[in-house]
């Protein structure tokens, strides 16, 4: 490895890091991604500049093959199919690591000539890479609905089987490290690890998939770092480790945002704990609801053109009107139109919402009556329902047996997305369940309305 290539590697990973920093904010993300891509290009070119490179045609073949498959796939995939695409890309990365490890084993005659740490790193890469490859493929299959999205288990056998697979893979690896050089040993490692990947991901439900993909992503990173150790390649070490570390944190953040714990998810896959598959944090109902976070609500609104605020009795109880006004001010400062949809019977007294919003100095022109609101919703990107319930309940139109049947409602679902702020899944004045909360367009932000809005305000300031 020449000094020049090494310097290029340092430049490359610096660009990765710089790009990644950009990726953490919506404003700089696009640029960050391209900066990282430039880093990658530099790393690849640097590698090709290494003295003594050969097999040029094969290398070209591999790259062309990859590009021919990867570029159109990435270009054509539908927005909705993005998650499975990410899973697939992650999988092939892991696969590459596993294959390289295999070849290393073969070309070094079972690591005969290498120091022990190279063997260990390479075998670690093989195991983790194989798990990632197969696990990601299963994740892809489930998301693409080639496999059932529902948990698939082999029942009580799950746990012993998984343990057995882990032991098998490790046993083969130890045998190799101890000097074994039979090709079957490395195949044993790869197969056992691959089966493990399959078995662990199969039982995981669709809702948990994003977290699992992120976890596999972190794994692939770690396997790349291990491969870097084995090949003594700084670029691989740094890039792999960064992905491993940031991926772990990201996994953790995602799990938290979904109100799930990683151990619970993996345990589920491992056949342990009874944690089911559905998302939704602490919903009293059995049906799944989607819960969201203040920062997500903030971003969703920050990139909207029009936001409709739908206040209800909960806003009054929480006395959240001042915070709501502050939020609207921030949004308006970003050029976003904010209107208030006032239902005639929102609250507990005629004009209840008016009294509160006037106190918070919301301009009269922004308050829209029901009819006008209903004609505005279709143009709204986000409807923010703040402690309102009955006045948004579609049962009033659809269910003749409902006590509120016949009451006109605010058709929040005609807007592009709905965020509902309330403390729990409990019902409002009429004491009935609200279909709106289970609508796929709806995300629930649980908590006291004032606290939630204040959090959103804080997040908005950071955007």
């Amino acid at each position, binding site marked *: 490895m020449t000094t020049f290539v090494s310097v290029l590697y340092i430049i490359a990973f610096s660009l990765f890091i710089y790009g990644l920093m950009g990726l953490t904010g919506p404003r700089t993300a696009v640029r960050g991604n391209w900066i990282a891509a430039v880093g990658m290009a530099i790393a690849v070119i640097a590698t090709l500049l290494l003295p003594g490179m050969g097999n040029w045609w094969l290398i070209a073949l591999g790259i062309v093959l990859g590009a021919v498959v990867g570029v159109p796939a990435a270009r054509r995939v539908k927005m909705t199919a993005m998650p499975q695409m990410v899973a697939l890309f992650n999988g092939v990365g892991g696969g590459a690591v596993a294959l390289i490890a295999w070849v290393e084993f073969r070309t070094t005659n079972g690591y005969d000539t290498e120091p022990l740490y190279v063997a260990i790193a390479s075998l670690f890469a093989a195991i983790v890479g194989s798990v990632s490859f197969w696990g990601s493929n299963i994740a892809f299959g489930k998301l693409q609905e080639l496999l059932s999205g529902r948990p698939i288990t082999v029942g009580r056998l799950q746990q012993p089987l998984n343990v057995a697979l882990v032991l098998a893979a490790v046993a083969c690896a130890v045998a190799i490290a101890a000097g074994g050089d039979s090709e079957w040993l490395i195949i044993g490692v790869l197969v056992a690890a691959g089966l493990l990947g399959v078995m662990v991901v199969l039982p995981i439900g669709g809702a948990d998939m994003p977290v699992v993909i992120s976890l596999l992503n972190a794994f692939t990173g770690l396997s790349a770092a291990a491969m870097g150790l084995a090949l003594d390649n700084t670029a691989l070490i740094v890039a792999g480790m960064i992905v491993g570390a940031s991926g772990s944190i990201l996994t953790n953040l995602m799990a938290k945002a979904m109100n799930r714990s990683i151990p619970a998810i993996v345990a589920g896959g491992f056949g342990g704990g009874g944690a089911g598959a559905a998302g939704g944090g602490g919903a009293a109902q059995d049906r799944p609801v989607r819960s969201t976070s203040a920062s997500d609500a903030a971003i969703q609104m920050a990139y909207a053109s029009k936001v409709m605020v739908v206040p209800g*009795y909960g806003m*009054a*109880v929480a*006395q959240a009107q001042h915070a709501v006004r502050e939020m609207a001010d921030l949004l308006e400062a970003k050029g976003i139109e904010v209107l208030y949809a006032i239902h*005639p*019977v929102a*609250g*507990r*007294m*005629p*004009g*209840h919402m008016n*009294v*509160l919003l*006037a*106190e918070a100095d919301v301009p009269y022109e922004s308050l829209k009556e029901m009819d006008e609101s209903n004609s505005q919703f279709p143009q709204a990107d986000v409807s923010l329902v703040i402690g309102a319930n*009955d006045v948004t309940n579609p049962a*009033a139109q659809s269910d003749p047996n409902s*006590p*509120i*049947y*016949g*009451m006109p409602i605010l058709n929040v679902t005609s807007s592009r997305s709905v965020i509902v702020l309330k403390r729990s899944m409990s019902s409002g004045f*009429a004491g009935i369940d609200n279909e709106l909360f289970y609508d796929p367009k709806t995300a629930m932000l649980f908590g006291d309305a004032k606290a939630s809005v204040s959090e959103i305000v804080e997040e908005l300031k950071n955007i």
Partner: protein
Amino acid sequence: MVTETPLTIGVVKETKPGERRVALVPKLVQRLAKRGLRVVLEPGAGAGAQLPDDLFVEAGAETGDAWSADVVLKVAPPSIADIERLKPGTVLIGFLAPLSNLDEIAAMRKAGITAFAVESIPRISRAQAMDALSSQANVGGYRAALLAAQRLPKFFPMLTTAAGTVPPAKVLVLGAGVAGLQALATAKRLGAQATGYDVRPEVAEQVRSVGAQWLDLGIEAVGEGGYARELTESERAEQQRRLTEAIGGFDVVITTALVPGRKAPTLVTAEAVRGMRPGSVIVDMAGETGGNCELTEPGEDIVAHEVTICSPLNLPAEMPVHASELYARNLTELLELIVNDDGRLAIDFSDEVVAGACVAGRAEGVE
């Protein structure tokens, strides 16, 4: 029962002294006209609410003998004389005070009139747009707070000025239904320290939700349909005792406590009035059913123990433009429930709202 030709709707001039509201406003005449209904206006009916006849005519009404229309819309309960002016078979809609004006109701029955009392509309979600009790109580609550501010020889808001600091007035509202909540909200807006009290415990949260404080005396009495029940003798005594203690600290007491069909509960005793500071004000909105204050003289403003006690009987009529507008909307919604799209009568007594509101004529109904 279904009639053959589109109906005529009569908007009569109110006969009760001081009643300035009118049962229909021009904006809604148009809406009825669209269904083919003919609106007949008694000349001058809208004058009290700043609505000259021409505005009605422009909107599609005609002036004439409104009393002999098929459907007569009224605001205040009709007198016996009023009822005699109606032709048999007339549908009468308005405040009819069915639980207290028993003679009049009997007269309607005798005259073959189908009468819908807006106070009897069940308070279900679907009927909220027809809920004239709410809409008028809302006006009443607002006016009661204004009246109190006007009668109090002090400021409502706190003011720190070069000539000294004035503390905020303390306002207590007894009974936090629609009127009570609006009174609380209005007093609060004006800067007073507003406190609410009620026997229904769930109201505490509602009182706080308008930014007011809650006075907890530890007495609960939840009745049916969201209304309060009457208290037992001992509960009443206990309540009066505790309220008397509390009231001394307030500058203004607004009372709105009603129990449907019964005499209003006495919440403010003579002793409580004596305990108040000179110049304090009591606005008793329950005057019509005897008042919540022992010393109230319904309809009068008196001064007792240097406390002004007002008992306005018809607060909504003091703000006739908006009160009429809201009321007319309530009636129109109800009317549309008993009239089909062609403007013919189509009363469906199986509808709980219709059935609940009908106080005369159903038994003898055409069905």
